[in-house]
């Protein structure tokens, strides 16, 4: 059954890819949505099946076929459904389906319609393979596969140069991360003889084996720390963290539904998934945890500051995504994997909502993406405005909306982090806290410039077709712009687009209630943190000073075929409250503070941008801290110049070939001298070679006979 979850969209992709050109738009859209629909239905069914199992045995495995088996190395097409992958497939197929439906409207009239849905379905196949894989290599298949689809979809408008550039940049940057991932995988195989999340051929999963290892000392880098950091290196590529985040903002050159699905809700969270999946290794290295937490927090604030100064609506959201991903890694770094995954989920809801909303705005504005040229749109597109506002409040951490719970949980876990050096948790909390304020502020700026204030699109609008510099979705010819609208008038999008917005808005409001933190839950009367309870068996916890105590548990879990990570988590009563690490009143006080800073961010935003919407921002922010330029001048250009002028034109042509040709010339001149060359170059060479050969053979023959006599 599990394989069909992945195969359904693949079949959709095959049908549309092979025959889509001859099918009409409706059929193509139907096939695409239907295949994802099937996948979603199966996912919900399997999830139900998972829930019906006892909490500590929630594992469903399925073998499809043996992919690679060489000596002790084995990687199968085999699937693992456990709470972690279960949660992921739910929101991937759920949000994925909504975005597919939205896209049937958004891409309406595009000449590459079938191509678009082929790629989008292929993406679903790869993404689901990624999360359902039962081993690191199949996960890697999905990992590179989603990268490929991302490449194809960023470069979807093949005639636009910047789309091609962005696509290539995304792929190559990801490859740098994948390199790190691969080395991590090699290290795991060499150390444990397994890359599987479950026991195979009598070899326990590497996660089980890792669970029985002692925790490494802080600031030392042992095997566990090395593996954790290498895998995290892979995650920095896919999930756009420092230093490999540069591709994601450029990726906005793809059509907007792609930005929502791939570059916000699903693919970019694959790194968080990987880190959580391998939590058993990560928790063994406080060093790695510290690095992950610091990079996460740094990325969060770094991207948030850039987000302050962007004028392209999608770029604002892109940097916001990078920033939110930083939060998720911060959570992983402090050992709060569940909080990180929780944020992945709520983020999938509100960020997909915001992106699709922005697509609706762009659509309604006839391909305008610059928020400086918008304003006052709330009159024209009410549904988009209301739903996007919900997303805005959710990301800003407005109480009781989804983003509030997950962000609050991360902040609290950071504040009380045990794995990090003393005091670092509080420092990182401060960074994350500040970022929360910035987030509220830049989102308010974006919303205000788009929906409030005066309309700034009137006059200049005639010229918009010719205006370059921004990534316009150029699929719109005249097919929709003139459905009874004056050309310059913004309009609300059709129902196929607004309906997904509404549904995502509902999820953004209520999605957080599955993970209400304990202290807060006691006040509002929700006493169980469902998501924590549910995910615990898939996640390992950090235990300071633990020395292989979990070994026995690990072996026990393995005998059930469980993915092993669970070790201590499953064995303990799941409700083991977080309060042990700090008191409830502090937690509530911090919650209050983060609500406050969210509100302050929104308030300041409104105050500042309602007075004067267009403001000059520091150019260092507008230019994204010149990171692209830095990479260009320090890595890319030197590499290219060296390759061209040193390796090729000097070493290859001058040194090696010079030597070869020199020898040849020397020989031929010698031959000339000996008058062997009257009949042309080739023959003289051949003759010389023959002579040389005879000499060499003669030498060997004599020598060999000599030696043989000697023996």
């Amino acid at each position: 059954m599990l394989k069909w979850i992945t195969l359904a969209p693949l079949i959709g992709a095959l049908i549309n890819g092979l025959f889509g050109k001859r099918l009409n738009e409706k059929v193509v859209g139907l096939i695409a949505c239907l295949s994802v629909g099937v996948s979603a239905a199966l996912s919900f069914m399997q999830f139900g099946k998972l829930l019906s199992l006892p909490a500590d045995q929630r594992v469903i495995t399925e073998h499809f076929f043996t992919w690679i088996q060489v000596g002790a190395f084995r990687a199968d097409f085999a699937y693992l459904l456990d709470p972690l992958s279960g949660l992921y497939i739910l929101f991937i197929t759920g949000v994925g389906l909504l975005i597919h439906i939205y896209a049937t409207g958004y891409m309406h009239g595009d000449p590459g319609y079938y191509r678009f849905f082929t790629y989008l379905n292929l993406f679903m196949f790869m993404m689901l393979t990624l999360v359902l894989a039962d081993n690191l290599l199949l996960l890697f298949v999905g990992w590179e596969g989603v990268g490929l689809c991302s490449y194809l979809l960023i470069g979807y408008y093949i005639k636009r140069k910047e789309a091609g550039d962005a696509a290539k940049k995304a792929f190559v940057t990801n490859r740098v991360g994948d390199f790190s991932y691969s080395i991590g995988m090699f290290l795991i195989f060499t150390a444990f003889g397994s890359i599987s999340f479950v026991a195979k051929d009598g070899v326990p999963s590497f996660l089980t084996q890792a669970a029985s290892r002692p925790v490494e000392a802080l600031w030392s880098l042992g095997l566990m720390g090395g593996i954790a950091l290498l895998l995290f290196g892979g995650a920095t590529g896919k999930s756009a963290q420092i230093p490999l985040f540069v591709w994601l903002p450029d990726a906005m050159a793809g059509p907007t539904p792609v930005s929502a699905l791939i570059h916000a809700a699903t693919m970019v969270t694959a790194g968080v998934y990987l880190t959580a999946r391998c939590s058993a290794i990560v928790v063994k290295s406080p060093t790695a945890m510290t690095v992950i937490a610091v990079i996460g927090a740094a990325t969060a604030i770094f991207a948030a500051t850039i987000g302050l100064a962007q004028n392209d609506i999608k770029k604002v959201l892109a940097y916001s995504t990078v920033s939110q991903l930083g939060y998720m890694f911060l959570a992983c770094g402090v050992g709060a994997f569940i909080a990180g995954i929780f944020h992945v989920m709520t983020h999938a809801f509100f960020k997909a909502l915001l992106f699709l909303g922005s697509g609706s705005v762009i659509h309604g504005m006839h391909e305008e993406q610059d928020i400086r040229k918008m304003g006052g749109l709330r009159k024209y597109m009410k549904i988009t405005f209301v739903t996007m506002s919900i997303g805005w409040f959710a990301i800003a951490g407005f109480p009781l909306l989804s983003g509030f719970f997950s962000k609050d949980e991360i902040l609290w876990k950071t504040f009380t982090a045990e794995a990090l050096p003393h005091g670092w948790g509080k420092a990182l909390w401060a960074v994350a806290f500040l970022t929360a304020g910035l987030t509220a502020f830049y989102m308010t700026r974006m919303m205000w410039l788009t929906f409030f204030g005066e309309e700034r699109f009137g006059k200049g609008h005639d010229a918009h077709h010719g205006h370059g510099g921004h990534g316009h979705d150029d699929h719109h010819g005249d097919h929709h712009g003139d459905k009874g609208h004056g050309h310059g008038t913004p309009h609300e999008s059709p129902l196929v687009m607004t309906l997904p917005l509404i549904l995502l808005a509902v999820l953004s409001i209520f999605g957080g209630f599955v993970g209400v933190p304990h202290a807060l839950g006691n006040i509002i009367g929700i006493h169980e943190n469902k998501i924590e309870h549910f995910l615990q068996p898939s996640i390992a916890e950090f235990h300071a000073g633990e020395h292989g105590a979990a070994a026995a548990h690990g072996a026990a879990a393995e005998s059930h075929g469980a993915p092993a990570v669970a070790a201590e988590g499953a064995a303990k009563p799941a409700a083991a409250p977080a309060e042990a690490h700090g008191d409830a009143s502090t937690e509530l006080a911090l919650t209050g503070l983060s609500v406050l800073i969210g509100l302050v961010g929104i308030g300041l935003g409104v105050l500042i941008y309602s007075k004067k919407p267009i403001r000059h921002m520091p150019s260092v922010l507008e230019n994204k801290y010149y990171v692209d330029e830095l990479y260009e001048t320090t890595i890319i250009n030197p590499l290219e110049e060296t390759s061209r002028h040193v390796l090729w034109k000097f070493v290859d042509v001058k040194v090696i070939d010079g030597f070869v040709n020199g020898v040849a010339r020397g020989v031929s001149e010698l031959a000339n001298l000996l008058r062997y060359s009257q009949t042309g170059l080739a023959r003289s060479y051949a003759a010389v070679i023959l002579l040389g050969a005879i000499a060499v053979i003669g030498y060997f023959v004599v020598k060999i006979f000599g030696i043989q006599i000697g023996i």
Partner: protein
Amino acid sequence: MNIITLTTFLPLIGALVLVLYSVVAGREGEPNKLNNQYRYLTLLITTATFLVSLGILTGFDRNQVAAQMVVKAPWITSLGTSYHVGIDGLSVWLVLLTTFLMPLSVLASWHVEKRVREYMLFMLVLETGMLGVFVSLDMFLFYLFFEITLIPMYFLIGVWGGERRIYAAIKFFIYTVVGSLLMLAAIIAIYYYNGGTTFDIVEITQNFATKRTAIPFPVQRMLWFAFALAFFIKVPLWPLHTWLPDAHVEAPTAGSIILAGVLLKMGTYGLMRFNLPLFPEVSREAAPFVMTLAVIGIVYGALVAMVQPDMKKLVAYSSVSHLGFVVLGIFAFTEQALQGALYQMLAHGISTGALFMCVGMIYDRRHTRMIDEFGGVATPMPQFSTMFLIVSLSSLGLPLLNGFIGEFLILIGTFSSDVPYAKAFAVFGGLGVILSAVYLLWMLQRVLFGDVTKRENAELEDMEWREKVALIPLVAMALVMGIAPMLFLRGSEKAVNKVKEAVQINAPKVAEHR
């Protein structure tokens, strides 16, 4: 008749038929019509050879270590050489790769108009030569076939090549002849060391398992080196590679396909067939040095490929990089690495053959291969572009396509190898995987994507049926090899393990799990 012999000599028989036919029909036939007949005849012969070679596959027992379908007949008894052919896990897939690529290469040669008969003749002789190399179980015979392949290839480049074809052909010839003559000397020496009675590879390998200790180590080194040099040049291993870009650029499309697809593999095959089993100690001793060169080749080839303005040269340098992986894997001596190396040979044959075919298709249309001359080709040629993209992705090692399996197994096998510095080699070799994405995607972007900037490119015709027939089997094979590698790996498993065991003598066991 023995199926190995039949497969090997069917092309040669076909060549004779072609000559006879041209003598009979050539007198009165119209040149154009005749040329077409030669083409179809050659296509027929090569296709028949492929079909016959499938019989090898069905008869092949993958659980057997020793050579199968063997023929051993006395030949020049005074020399101790016999006609001894057969296949085992090392050679079976290379034989099939050869017979698979040949009909496709003939299809890719359809536009050759100059001396079609001779061209096809050389193609057929070449095929027999290449097959002979892989099926020979006698050193003398092996050497003979190894050298025979030189001649048709020399002429294919020298007569049907581009502007600097003479230079390239001679360079190709000299480089390879220098190496192979040394090998001849070594073969003769080994013959004497083995007692001076036989050239039989199976027998000698068996004897050497114990007898080689009688040979002074410095002499073993020399003999190893004589073989290795011949094969390194053929591969080609950095820094012996400079003949390759020239040969590729000047060769006609089919020449490039065969050169990259099969001829280079004769080098890596030779290393696995001779160097490792015959001289395990020297191989182990040399491994860190060879791997260093291999890793340099991987990175260097990729970097130089990146800055090539000519597509064909780019693909040629990418071969240097990819074959570096193969050599790296061979000298890591682990099962994963050796299997990966063998797999990478096949995968490279498929994807680089397909890349050359794609470049050939654009060249046929525009008579230039300069990347600058293109841009936006995807607009007039969408089908071609899709194929070119898939082929490039397979070459850059995307999972679920053929290139990934080999590279991955090589790297993970190298990483877990006990050769000194193996981990570092795997890590630096892994950089090649990043770089291959850079040079291939950059090329694609400049050739296929963006706006059509040159008027000549606006009206390019998409693939015709003949081109599809030639390219689609390669693309299909790339997919099959990526999704179901066990189909192939199980066939080579036994033979590879034998090589591994031979070379793992006295070596500490590679870390078992836990």
